[in-house]
């Protein structure tokens, strides 16, 4: 059931908040031992919040809707572990800004979701809290870093979830888990109360079954926060009222280079068919070349490595051995990136941003594969591309960094399968043009049913 349908049933008293929470808690108890999407569940608190809601007269837009959050987002009184040993016993004293907004809208927080340690990796395999398994194939990873957020939606362990995205961490698990996920424009959603990866690129965003669900959640959490200087006072429209309109007339640029090189040909074919679907719905589709696209990964790394290292420096000095080996290595790299390279990265970012602004004068949206490969098996860090093994980490940078660099909204849309595993289409919009992204995404989902497909593990029983 979608967030919108669930909220409607709750408001109509066809279902009580307590019944909704109990239903999801039961499902978590049944399925999560296999999937491992949750780091912590808060059954008593969630039920108490549901009871309090039932007694109040407040009926917010998410009244009684059970959601779950990546475990880098603070909920007062609950642990925020970031799937790390270092923060394993860290209890938040205040709600994150996005949590304050969700609670004000009537949402109930079921628990905190697994992630790659400190949200600094794309596998979702924390050694401290275990790997999150892909609901489509438990032998495969769910992607990351917001792996629990993707898996929980796919397995119906929450109505929708929040993740965070620095260099693909919402889009990648949304793609691998076959769900919809939106990385919002940087500056739209507050990061206050969220464990940082790299301040320049970090943003919180929704994952859900549909674009409509993501729109409902985003319009709740977005908005200026005086306590977070990265947020801008740009005004937040009611995205869920702007979904209609269809794809007709939208100008969509196909990022040719991302379909042609560094990608599994089977994935490229699936995503190309999705673009043709949008053309069939009336979109004007044409190819586009973006200068400096091939440098985008290097540009982001020039800034991301030092920023992440700066955020962790106190623990690198005192608790180095408490990091997982892969995260420790990435954090140490930041000690050795020269300060001049950081500034060069900032200058190159300006160059790339300006090039993309010119591209967006000709197109409303850009289309590309979200991920070029299928998820690796749990325990493996390489994938096969063109018949050769390649480090999984290296495959994803070209496809995700460009859109993080320009601070644009990007949605992942499930659009087909390869070997029984989901593939995803990325639609990229102009900065703060989330409404256009949602409009195209909704049109695609009205015409297709990829977002309605459920993995076997989720089909066992309906949550509500």
């Amino acid at each position: 059931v979608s967030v919108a349908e669930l909220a409607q049933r709750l408001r109509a008293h066809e279902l009580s908040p307590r019944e909704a929470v109990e239903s999801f808690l039961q499902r978590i108890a049944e399925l999560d031992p296999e999937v491992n999407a949750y780091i912590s569940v808060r059954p008593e608190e969630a039920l108490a919040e549901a009871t309090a809601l039932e007694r109040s007269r407040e009926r917010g837009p998410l009244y009684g809707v059970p959601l779950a959050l990546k475990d880098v987002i603070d909920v007062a009184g609950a642990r925020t572990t970031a799937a790390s040993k270092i923060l394993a016993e860290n209890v938040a004293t205040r709600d994150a800004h996005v949590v304050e907004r969700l609670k004000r809208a009537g949402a109930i927080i079921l628990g905190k979701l697994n992630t790659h340690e400190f949200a600094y990796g794309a596998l979702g395999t924390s050694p401290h809290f275990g790997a999150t398994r892909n609901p489509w194939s438990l032998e495969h990873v769910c992607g990351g870093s917001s792996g629990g957020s993707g898996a929980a939606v796919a397995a119906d362990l929450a109505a929708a979830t929040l993740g965070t995205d620095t260099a693909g961490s919402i889009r990648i698990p949304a793609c691998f888990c076959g769900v919809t996920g939106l990385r919002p424009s940087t500056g739209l959603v507050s990061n206050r109360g969220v464990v940082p990866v790299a301040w320049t690129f970090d943003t919180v965003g929704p994952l859900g079954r549909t674009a409509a669900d993501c729109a409902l959640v985003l319009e709740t959490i977005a908005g200026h926060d005086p306590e977070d200087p990265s947020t801008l006072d740009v005004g937040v429209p009611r995205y869920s009222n702007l979904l209609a309109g269809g794809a007709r007339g939208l100008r969509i640029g196909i990022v040719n280079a991302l379909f042609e090189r560094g990608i599994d040909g089977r994935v490229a074919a699936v995503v190309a068919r999705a673009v043709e679907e949008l053309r069939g719905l009336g979109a004007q589709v044409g190819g586009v070349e973006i200068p400096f696209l091939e440098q985008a990964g290097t540009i982001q790394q020039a800034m991301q490595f030092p920023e992440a290292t700066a955020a962790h420096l106190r623990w690198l000095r005192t608790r180095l051995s408490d990091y997982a080996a892969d995260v420790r290595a990435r954090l140490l790299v930041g000690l050795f990136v020269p300060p001049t390279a950081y500034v060069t990265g900032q200058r190159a970012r300006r160059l790339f941003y300006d090039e993309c602004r010119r591209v967006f004068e000709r197109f409303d949206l850009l289309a590309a594969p979200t991920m070029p490969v299928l998820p690796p098996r749990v325990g493996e860090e390489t994938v096969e591309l063109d018949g050769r093994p390649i480090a999984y980490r290296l495959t994803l940078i070209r496809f995700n960094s460009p859109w993080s660099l320009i601070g644009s909204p990007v949605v992942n849309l499930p659009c087909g399968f390869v070997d029984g595993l989901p593939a995803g289409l990325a639609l990229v919009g102009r900065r703060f043009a989330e409404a256009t992204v949602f409009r195209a995404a909704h049109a695609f989902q009205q015409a297709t049913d990829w977002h309605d497909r459920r993995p076997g593990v989720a089909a066992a029983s309906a949550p509500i």
Partner: protein
Amino acid sequence: VAAAPPSLAFLQSVAAGQGVRVEEADLEPVVSFLTVLLPELDELEQLVPAGVVPAGLFLPPPDA
């Protein structure tokens, strides 16, 4: 930006200068990263024209 991979001893001294004590075993994967990254950063520097100024930590509003 140096294009050649730095030695473990050099990396240990740079880390120590920032208060981080690192074992050689910790640095082996770091060298793999740097062997790829440092030449790429070097190339990037060559690509950016002299007149381009930094984007800034947070991007401005789109109409700025």
